[in-house]
């Protein structure tokens, strides 16, 4: 689960994840978002120019407009999991908060928490079912994973992490998504709007770090990716739109 204040960078990251999974891992990807993507994120235009079109065909976009439509689309994925075509190995939901009716200017109601649990549980249960189907086919593309992005209303606040801890919807999502990837904007590193040398400065900088019981479990089990998740990362959006990741020292 990718969490952070409202910004386009999460969509770019999810898009990059979908393309990487389809082109480098060869898996089928389902990308669910309430708003049709009108143009490619600038950061990906160079990447896409070098891609095999067949890779892009492995990504399917669906645009459920409401929570009910999202539930229906996810609930019916099992219907085509037994056909000749391989099931999805990655399900991405961009902008989950828009399906949950969460507004940054009001407190979530109890029914919002139940709705968040329903959507999350259905995604988790569907991924478990598709994993079983992928394993029945030899397991080369198993397991099926789910990645969602969730905006939190942090604008104008300091101490974003403490607000994240208090968000009642986020605490529900944490029950079902065991790894949380937090994007924290580094306002001190962003290029000022009037900077003369803005062509060399990043358009935006985010601190990226992982948390959650899934990270703890991986560390305990000594899994290979645990060193990646243990680190903090710096994500810079270059003037040409490219995304640059660099590891940060543990003392930063």
């Amino acid at each position, binding site marked *: 689960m990718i969490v952070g204040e409202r910004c386009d960078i999460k969509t770019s990251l999810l898009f990059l994840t979908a393309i990487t999974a389809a082109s480098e891992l060869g898996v089928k990807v389902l990308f669910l978002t309430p708003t049709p993507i009108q143009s490619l994120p600038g950061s990906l235009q160079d990447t896409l120019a070098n891609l095999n079109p067949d890779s892009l065909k492995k990504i399917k976009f669906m645009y459920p407009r409401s929570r009910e439509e999202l539930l229906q689309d996810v609930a019916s994925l099992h219907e085509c*999991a037994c056909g000749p075509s391989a099931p999805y190995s990655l399900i991405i939901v961009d902008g989950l908060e828009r399906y949950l009716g969460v507004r940054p200017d009001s407190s979530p109601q109890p029914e919002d*928490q139940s709705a968040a*649990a329903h959507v999350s*549980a259905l995604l988790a*249960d569907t991924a478990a079912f598709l994993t079983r189907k992928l394993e029945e086919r030899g397991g080369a593309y198993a397991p099926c994973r789910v990645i969602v992005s969730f905006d939190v209303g942090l604008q104008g606040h300091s101490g974003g992490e403490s607000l994240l801890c208090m968000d009642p919807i986020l605490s529900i999502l944490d*029950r079902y998504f065991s790894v949380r990837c937090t994007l924290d904007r580094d306002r001190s590193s962003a290029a000022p709007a009037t900077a003369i040398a803005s062509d060399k400065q990043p358009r935006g900088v985010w601190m990226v770090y992982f948390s959650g019981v899934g990270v703890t479990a991986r560390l305990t089990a000594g899994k290979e990716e645990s060193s990646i998740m243990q680190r903090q990362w710096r994500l810079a959006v270059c003037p040409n739109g490219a995304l640059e990741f660099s590891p940060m020292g543990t003392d930063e």
Partner: protein
Amino acid sequence: MSSFLPAVAEELLREIRNVYQETSQIPDEILLALKFVFGPSALHALDLVDQRAVTVLSSPSGRRVYQVVGGSGHLYTCYTTCHYCPCPAFAFSVLRRSESLLCKHILAAYLCQAMGLSQQETVTDQQMSNILCGKAGPGT
């Protein structure tokens, strides 16, 4: 679904499975342990087990889901691999207050699974989709 439970609860359900397979009974000390681990939900869940209130629905795709008839006659759909129940107790005690591990309907599903006492029913894939997203029961 068991990976969502603490180890002690998993061990308890394993014990129930083993004992019930051998004796078709659950001894008092295990009933007490159930009450200790799951609180007041345990007795209500055992009542649902007695009433054979848990049905496992399956469709040709292989998708499965639990349906539990609650005390009021309402039908609750619970997923097989993670904890979710649309009942008010799950929303309040589990999600909102974090006071309970699960509600009586999910615990009843666990117990019926362990004791082999679930009813079985087959539905079409399309019916399964409607049930999974909360639109309909098996008869619609």
